[in-house]
């Protein structure tokens, strides 16, 4: 099925199941410990041995000597695989650094070997007995130092120029020119990278934890230099990924190599202290923002430049992406620059580009509003656009940004905010409010599904879509239930298996809309097949309450499969509506923060997000996405930072004691409001994503609230107390 014209009325519009706050269909499995995660699967042909990965002890250089003799003799040790004795390996397109290093070392904690033993403890102990010496090479670890040599990019990341930015900025009566920095961040998902791998002849099977099954299958095949048909990837439950599990990682490759070496299944879970440097992270950025405005608050010039770094061959953090589209203004400039660094691999993390980009842009907008003596909500409303500002012939498919701001302001009591900072006190506490825009594009990805109607009237959906904690199982069940006129209980959903049709996977907040659209397409086909079996006109049938009805005829849906299961498989493909219309999601974040006037400790006291993201498929799971994202945003604003050792080239705080994310005590009541929307230009589901939208802008809303509370503007995330303590109002 191809979606190339706006959706008319379709069965989803009935919204009997879709749009309802259905409980997670997999909730009970998870809360009772019965949902097996990658490391826990019992469905393995033999008792697995345990693998323990050894990471490089330097950031850049070469292995000078590798002594595994002692380790090999240790109790229980079955195999030690390193580049010396591993088969030749390829490198997947989506990996920048090799997943097995040696003799060259490309980054700290790059996997150099795996030790396989009968028990986990034996493997770990032997891994510690492997002695590796290195010849260190000079590395580049400091973004600020590398910045002058950073290079421009091409394609989607090329510079953009609209109108005459330089002239308009120079001529603008009110100007802002500031630099903001965001740090390296880690996904810090709960479940570590984990895989159980085994071989049957030349065929490889893995239970793993991965967001993108088809990518993982292809990349495993490329890396192991084998045909993809021989790779079977399964990842039915995933304990969070946030983009960290989009790509093939060392756990899967090393488990496969270990399993081959010892002729048994091998399981590996990456130890947390190894994960933060071994795997990918969101890279730090340095962002310069220049804004020009008229005295009455119209933006005339918007310039956003961003510098980030990555290993040679890597990519930039596209932090200027959203600036192309968020506000009106005739003269515009965006530019990305990429420096080569020898830190661990930079790559996607939840809302890549937008998250750090909006952390900067939405402080700049707050600063500009202050210069103009305008309310920051009003300033944003005034500069709204209904068309792509770089290409005014191209409208947004739907854009209710202004309503998000205005509804939010009313609900939050924004009118109680004192525009002058550091004025509101409650005892020791300085109180402030902040607002920021949330903005993230909608992306659609080709997505296929297979649906089966059984003789008992139940429907089974099979697709390689993943549920990384988002609720995919549930919204897919709801989609099939709505399409087939069934209650959710009559639908079974099977996900995360590379033997199923290839879906969009989970990433870029494209999963919900794309994957349910794929299921929609397969169900549409199944409806036709059922109608035909029942001798009804497919164009005239309705599927309601477990029945198929046409005119005054009706039959139980189960009837259609009496003489044999009906199986329909279909792929949703996308036409050019995404080109004709800018498809995006919008929101506004409101935050109230209190800062201890003595110690500088910040406590977020209230949070509100108002989101406009098309049809909300399930308000319960969608809300969970947004409150989780808001929590992550508080972390980004106030505490999350991978501390770079610029001498030795690694993230020093490489465990969850050192890399702090919010705990319950940091998070106040969170309110989420979804505007009642349905966007007919994005898909038959009329839905868009919310998972990344929820994060976009949160950091800046917190930052703006802290500024409003204290009068100290911090442009360097995270906003930890050491950065403003000495500038707080004097204490008694």
């Amino acid at each position, binding site marked *: 099925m191809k979606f190339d014209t706006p959706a008319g009325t379709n069965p989803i519009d009935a919204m009997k199941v879709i749009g309802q706050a259905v409980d997670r269909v997999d909730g009970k499995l998870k809360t009772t410990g019965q949902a097996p995660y990658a490391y826990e699967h019992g469905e393995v042909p033999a008792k697995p041995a345990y693998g323990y990965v050894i990471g490089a002890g330097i950031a850049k250089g070469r292995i000078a000597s590798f002594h595994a003799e002692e380790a090999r003799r240790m109790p229980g040790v079955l195999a030690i695989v390193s580049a010396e004795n591993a088969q030749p390996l390829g490198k997947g397109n989506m990996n920048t650094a090799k997943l097995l290093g040696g003799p060259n070392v490309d980054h700290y904690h790059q996997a150099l070997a795996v030790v396989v033993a009968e028990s986990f403890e034996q493997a770990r102990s032997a891994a510690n007995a492997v002695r590796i010496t290195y010849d260190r090479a000079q590395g580049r670890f400091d973004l600020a130092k590398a910045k002058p040599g950073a290079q421009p990019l091409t394609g989607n990341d090329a510079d953009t120029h609209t109108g005459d930015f330089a002239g308009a900025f120079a001529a603008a009566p009110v100007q802002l020119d500031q630099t903001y920095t965001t740090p390296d961040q880690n996904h810090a998902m709960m479940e570590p990278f984990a895989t159980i791998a085994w071989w049957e002849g030349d065929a490889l099977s893995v239970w793993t934890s991965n967001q993108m099954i088809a990518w993982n299958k292809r990349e495993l095949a490329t890396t192991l230099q084998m045909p993809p048909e021989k790779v079977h990837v399964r990842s039915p439950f995933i304990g969070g990924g946030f983009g960290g599990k989009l790509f093939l990682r060392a756990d899967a490759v090393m488990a496969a190599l270990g399993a081959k070496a010892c002729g048994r299944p091998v399981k590996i879970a990456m130890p947390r*202290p190894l994960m933060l440097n071994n795997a990918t992270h969101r890279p730090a950025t340095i962002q310069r923002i220049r804004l020009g405005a008229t005295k009455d608050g119209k933006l005339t010039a918007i310039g956003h430049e961003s510098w980030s770094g990555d290993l040679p061959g890597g990519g930039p953090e596209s932090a200027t992406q959203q600036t192309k589209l968020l506000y009106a203004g005739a003269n515009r400039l965006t530019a990305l620059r990429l420096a080569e660094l020898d830190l661990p691999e930079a790559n996607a993390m939840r809302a890549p580009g937008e998250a750090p980009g909006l952390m900067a842009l939405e402080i700049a907008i707050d600063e500009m509003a202050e210069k103009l003596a305008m309310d920051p909500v009003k300033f944003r409303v005034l500069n709204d656009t209904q068309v792509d500002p770089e290409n005014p012939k191209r409208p947004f498919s739907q854009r209710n940004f202004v309503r998000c701001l205005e509804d939010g302001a009313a609900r939050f009591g924004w009118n109680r905010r004192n525009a002058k900072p550091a004025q509101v006190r409650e005892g020791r506490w300085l109180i402030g409010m902040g607002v920021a825009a949330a903005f993230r594009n909608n992306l659609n990805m080709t997505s296929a599904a297979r649906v089966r109607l059984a003789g008992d009237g139940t429907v089974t959906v099979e697709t390689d879509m993943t549920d990384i904690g988002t609720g995919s199982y549930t919204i897919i069940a709801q989609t099939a239930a709505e399409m087939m006129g069934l209650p959710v209980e009559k639908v079974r959903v099977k996900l995360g298996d590379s033997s199923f049709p290839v879906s969009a996977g989970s990433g870029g907040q494209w999963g919900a809309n794309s994957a349910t659209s794929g299921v929609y397409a397969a169900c549409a086909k199944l409806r036709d097949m059922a109608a035909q079996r029942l001798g009804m006109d497919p164009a005239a049938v309705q599927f309601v309450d477990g029945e198929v009805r046409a005119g005054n005829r009706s039959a139980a849906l189960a009837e259609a499969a009496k003489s044999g299961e009906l199986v329909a498989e279909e792929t949703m493909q996308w036409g050019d509506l995404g080109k004709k219309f800018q498809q995006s999601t919008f929101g506004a974040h409101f935050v109230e923060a209190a800062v201890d006037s003595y110690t500088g400790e910040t406590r977020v006291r209230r949070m509100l997000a108002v989101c406009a993201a098309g049809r909300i498929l399930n308000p319960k799971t969608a809300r969970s996405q947004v409150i989780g994202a808001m929590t992550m945003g508080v972390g980004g604003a106030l505490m999350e930072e991978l501390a770079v050792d610029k001498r030795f080239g690694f993230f020093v705080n490489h465990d969850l004691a050192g890399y702090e994310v919010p705990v319950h005590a940091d998070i106040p009541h969170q309110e989420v409001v979804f505007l009642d929307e349905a966007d007919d230009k994005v898909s038959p589901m009329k839905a868009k994503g919310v998972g990344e939208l929820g994060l976009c802008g949160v950091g800046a809303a917190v930052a703006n609230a802290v500024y409003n509370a204290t009068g100290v503007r911090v442009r360097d995330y995270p906003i930890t107390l050491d950065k403003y303590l000495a500038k707080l109002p004097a204490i008694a």
Partner: protein
Amino acid sequence: MKAFTYERAKTPAAAAAAVAANKGAKFIAGGTNLLDLMKLEIETPTHLVDVQDLGLDRIEATKEGGLRIGTLVSNTALAADSRVRKDYGVLTRAIVAGASGQLRNKATTGGNLLQRTRCPYFYDTNQACNKRKPGSGCAAIGGFSRPLGVIGTSDACIATHPSDMAIALRVLDAAVETVDASGKTRSVPIGEFHRLPGDTPHLENVLQPGELITAVTLPKPLGGRHFYHKVRDRASYAFALVSVAAVLNEDGSGRVAFGGVAPKPWRVEAADAQLRNGAAATAKTAFAEARPTHENAFKVTLAERTLAALIAENQA
């Protein structure tokens, strides 16, 4: 983790003798610190002597009018004890500001005093660390030093002692009771229990090999108002950037000790005498010899401001 043997001692002296007799032996109490370090092979004992059967899990009144806290009293039980809450509030507050409920259930009094630093380089065996491997150097100096010490540090080590409980014990002038392999007991004032690093940062306290902590004693109640304020980057479940334990009287006099700043609970008696002159004067004396790095100089300001908050609260 290296393979090790394990025994459960029956008496304090037997436990001490078992550890003294074996160079690779260590005591294990709650295990919340030691086991983590063993998994990372930062500690590599070959033999563990478990002290949980020694009957040292009671809190008793002393004839001096104070309390004797058995080394195996859990952090949870100690914080919840009604006598402690009434007369030694600073101790309860300090304990509950640390770790998490689950950890405090397992963590013991003696183990808490002996927990090792949270310097991130100490935890990474690829990095030079004089505390972990004497003579190897200190990777933290010149590196990521934001969480590390500002005073009492040396050119060999700038790590802090991470305990919250110990800061309160210092302000209360507690003492540590021990027994050695020969059955000899002694009592060490808490201020003399932990050592400054000098050029031997791996030696963190005055215990001799095999010497077992049996109890911590508290002198008779001090009165005054008890405060513990722990400042960190998130609201809970993190080690202190700075913490301040104070017992303040109505007239503004009192005592103060600082955590998160030094290799041991930081108390300077001459600074106590400045309390009536305010936080600035007190901190000036307490931190006169501070040698912060550019990343952690804020801790000195933070210590002063946090103390100011407590003084203001005492006056309110």
